[in-house]
């Protein structure tokens, strides 16, 4: 399948995205997308996350990137803001009253925002902030020392 060009309509781009189901996630959630791959595939900058559901057509008459999340949706994030990642992190984005919340599946972290991108960006900041907290010393409970190992295996210092 060829990579869509910048002039490709939003709906054509949406069709290009393939849901990447895993048995565990499929049991709990409707849709799983690899966001970074999707953004890369569609020629968007790495920090631009497109969030589509294939069942809900993205608006074609808008110049803005459509953000559509109708149910808890799992994404893999491959990049943070200031750090590269060796392995992706699973996150869930879902509606939170009049806004959105992005939560890490593996750690008790969340980011909230008025839209998906803001929630995701806040979560990325949270992950970085936690990583920076954890590398300062080892005065943490066992649970947080596990998260430290988990993050150190996934984050590459710049």
């Amino acid at each position: 399948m060829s990579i869509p060009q910048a002039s490709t309509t939003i709906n054509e781009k949406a069709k290009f995205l393939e849901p990447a189901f895993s048995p565990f996630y499929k049991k709990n959630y409707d849709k799983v997308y690899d966001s970074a791959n999707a953004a890369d595939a569609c020629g968007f900058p790495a920090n631009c996350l497109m969030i589509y559901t294939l069942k809900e057509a993205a608006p074609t008459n808008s110049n803005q990137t459509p953000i559509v999340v109708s149910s808890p949706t799992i994404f893999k994030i491959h990049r943070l803001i200031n750090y590269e990642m060796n392995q992706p992190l699973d996150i869930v984005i879902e509606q939170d009253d009049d806004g959105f919340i992005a939560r890490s599946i593996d750690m008790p972290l969340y980011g909230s925002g008025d839209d998906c991108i803001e929630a995701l960006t806040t979560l990325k900041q949270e992950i970085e902030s936690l990583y920076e907290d954890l590398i300062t010393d080892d005065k943490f409970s066992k649970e947080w020392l596990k998260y430290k190992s988990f993050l150190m295996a996934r984050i590459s210092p710049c």
Partner: protein
Amino acid sequence: MKNGKFNTYDVKTTCEKKLNIVFRSNGEFNGWYCLDGNKTCRITIPKGRKNIRTETYKSMARQLKLSIQDFDELLECPLTPEKYVVKLRERLSNEN
């Protein structure tokens, strides 16, 4: 759940006064609760005096390892710092 009754400033103030959490300001306010000299719970509170959305409220409760009801009580006052330590120890022993 009493998220409509409190805003983010209320949560931050309660955590500071009752749990002695010191917050740092990055993107959001982050603070650690220390138990037995170890950083044990890390809470994130959105900046400003915002209303707290439902899932955000639940997430903050989870970060402190409290049920929603206990988190309500922490904010409303019946849950004292001493009771919090008891609940936290129970929760940690259940997790181990």
